[in-house]
């Protein structure tokens, strides 16, 4: 057992670090503040410039085939780059869904002319992609998508609504899951398309989240025309295409967010305990909770090291990586909740000028409920663990053998 890179990995890590040092600033409170001050347009411009540099220097598409402009390295190298990049204020967020999920799907299901058209531009950051799966009536049950596409000559005409689309407001293209045949079973009547997000009939509207922010969108489609050449996979095979996309999602989601046990430890040194006998850090109950957070945060970090070890040996991580978000989202909420309650009445103040850590605990508190839902709810992730890791049987299906149009859909 050791925590060291192999010589090849170490060499790659130092190359990555050199690239990052030359192009972006190390993470600090100051650099984060500066980044927050950028307007969305300024941030996007910086992000595109950074992505172009990554592509020029061989740090975009690290695991992709050489024909696609990648370096064809094993997944461990992408993990190493991400580890190093996380230490910097690198504006990579606008590309994570496109390059992590959408474009790999395009590569898997397209012919050469389509790949030539889209892949290189996405890798260079010239064009940004989003993923259009969830609908108001199709969240956990995303195969219940109702947005429909009807064949019209060489085109398809799309009508409907998608929701929770990250980055739709600045995306050039999206991959879109639609119902092309309501007369067959739910999973068999779906088809996947590439859609031009800038065309007529595509209406992107930001969602005002419970947390107050506007990070996601609704996207309405009104008589949107998509050429049949933009279809990914055969008509009716959209669910299989979607599974490829979602498989990549598990690798993408699951980092930790917001203040963790180290921040709340510091916080607890400077605030009174409920008994009033000293600082919170001396409070027995708080210390027991803190130990649980340490154990889970360290356990998650160390489990990732085990995944890295498997990757380093050339193995592919399976659905077991689903545990990350279940642990982190709940822990983020518990830590935030404890820190807010520990402030007693003052805890209600989230003004960054007054609240501890500029209100970071309050942000966590308001964002964590969304994190427990996004990218697979806690419940869906537990189903995945139960079914794909432990091999438990699927739930009884009431939608088997019934045409989609005859399924009850409620509200």
């Amino acid at each position, binding site marked *: *057992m050791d925590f060291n890179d192999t010589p090849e990995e170490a060499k790659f890590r130092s190359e990555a670090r050199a690239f990052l040092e030359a192009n972006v600033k190390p993470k600090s409170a100051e650099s984060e503040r500066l980044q927050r001050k950028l307007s969305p347009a300024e941030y996007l411009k910086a992000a595109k410039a950074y992505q172009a540099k990554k592509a020029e220097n061989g740090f975009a598409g690290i695991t992709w085939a050489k024909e696609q402009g990648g370096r064809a390295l094993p997944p461990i190298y992408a993990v190493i780059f991400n580890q190093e990049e996380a230490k910097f204020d690198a504006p990579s967020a606008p590309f994570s869904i496109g390059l992590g999920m959408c474009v790999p799907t395009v590569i898997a299901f397209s012919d050469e002319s389509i790949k030539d058209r889209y892949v290189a531009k996405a890798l260079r950051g010239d064009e940004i992609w989003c993923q259009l799966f969830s609908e108001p009536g199709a969240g956990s049950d995303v195969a219940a998508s109702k947005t429909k596409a009807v064949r019209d000559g060489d085109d398809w005409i799309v009508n409907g609504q998608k929701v929770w689309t990250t980055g739709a407001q600045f995306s050039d293209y999206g991959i879109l899951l639609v119902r092309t045949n309501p007369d067959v079973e739910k999973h068999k009547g779906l088809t996947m398309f590439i859609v031009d997000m800038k065309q007529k009939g595509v209406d992107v509207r930001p969602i005002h989240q419970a947390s107050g922010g506007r990070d996601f969108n609704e996207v309405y489609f009104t008589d949107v025309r998509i050429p049949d050449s933009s279809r990914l996979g055969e008509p009716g095979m959209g669910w299989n295409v979607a599974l490829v996309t979602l498989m990549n999602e598990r690798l993408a989601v699951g980092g930790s967010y917001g203040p963790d046990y180290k921040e709340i430890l510091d916080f607890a040194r400077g605030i009174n305990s409920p008994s009033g006998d000293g600082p919170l850090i001396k409070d027995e109950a708080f210390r027991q909770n803190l130990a649980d957070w340490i154990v889970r945060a360290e*356990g998650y970090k*160390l489990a990732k*090291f085990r995944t890295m070890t498997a990757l380093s040996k050339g193995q592919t991580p399976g659905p077991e990586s689903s545990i990350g978000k279940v642990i982190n989202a709940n822990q983020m909420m518990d830590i935030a909740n404890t820190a807010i309650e520990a402030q007693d009445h003052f805890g209600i103040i989230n003004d960054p000028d007054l609240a501890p850590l500029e209100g970071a605990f309050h942000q966590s508190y308001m964002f964590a409920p969304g994190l427990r839902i996004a990218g697979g709810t806690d419940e869906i992730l537990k189903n995945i*663990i139960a079914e794909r890791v*432990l091999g*438990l049987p699927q739930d009884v299906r009431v939608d088997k053998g019934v045409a989609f149009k005859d399924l009850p859909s409620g509200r």
Partner: protein
Amino acid sequence: MNFDFSEDQKSLKDQARKFLSEKASSKVTRSVLDDAAKSYDQDLWRAVAEMGWLGVAIPEEHGGLGLGRLELCVLAEEIGRAVAPIPFSSTVYFFAEALMLAGSDAQKGAHLPNVASGETIGCFAVSEGPGAPTAASVQAKFDGATLNGVKIPVTDGDCASWAVVAAKEGGGVSLVLVELNQPGVTRTTLKTLDPTRGHAKLEFKNAKAERLGPGGQGWELAEAVLDRAAVLIAFEQVGGSQACLEMATEYAKGRYAFSRQIGSFQAIKHKLADMYVNIEVARSNAYYGAWALSTEAAELSFAAAASRAAASDAYYFCAKENIQTHGGMGFTWDVDCHLFFRRAKLLAVQAGSPAVWKEKLVKRLEQRNAA
């Protein structure tokens, strides 16, 4: 990054699992459970000794195999999985580790070969009553030659021939080595929640004893032994937790209610997924403990506490939810669920309760941050 056991260690694990599934089925555990006079299974103990497991981490010069602590971790997981009714932890994780940590060459030479051969069963005696012991609470007294006082409970104290005991000496605490088969020692077998392991009250009246390690440093030494043992016990707990999850999963696949497998209900799935998450957290922390133990890293004290805190909680959760998944059957004597539920509690409170280890973990985090 190589945060995993080696191929050799994994094949040792497979070998151990195969061996224990033949020699340490729950029938063997139950033979101790159902017989109040039986404190451990002697056949299994001999077989384990013949395999060389008792001396896995003991140097070759003292009759061991001279492998490392990682190999011992691998065996611990399998022994925990099997709920093996043998004084393995007392002898190997506590008695032998204490000797290797603090013993003189003469003491090591006298005892370690007998541990490796299975001749000596050892135990470790700190507790004297309800509540977590501290350096200040130790009442047993050592005067440089004889020991007086009471230790209760002592795991495997009924079958051990030697004990390492924490006792007051002058103003401090020392560890002392005591032979238990002598007139100055009275043993009383105790009834416990986990009768698959022997427990005793040990009373010392002018019992002959010798110091183990420097006088007055016994509490620090005991803490160091506990840290080492903590990692190994955590592996037993991970093994037991994993066994519970597998047992519950199998049952959930085979048991029908409302004309369907109960494992198809989300209430059961989520329960089992929670068990899985708890085990992954515990296993990952235990691996870190194993790394720290095997490399004698400064992180051991932190990693040991995290290992124990995670593994104690995981085993409790898995053992109770395994019973719940089995429904009424799980509450019968004849189904093995309670063997795990009992062992889970012994391993949770032995050598420091979860609350004690959680407190240690936070204290050690504070120390690490201060350093």
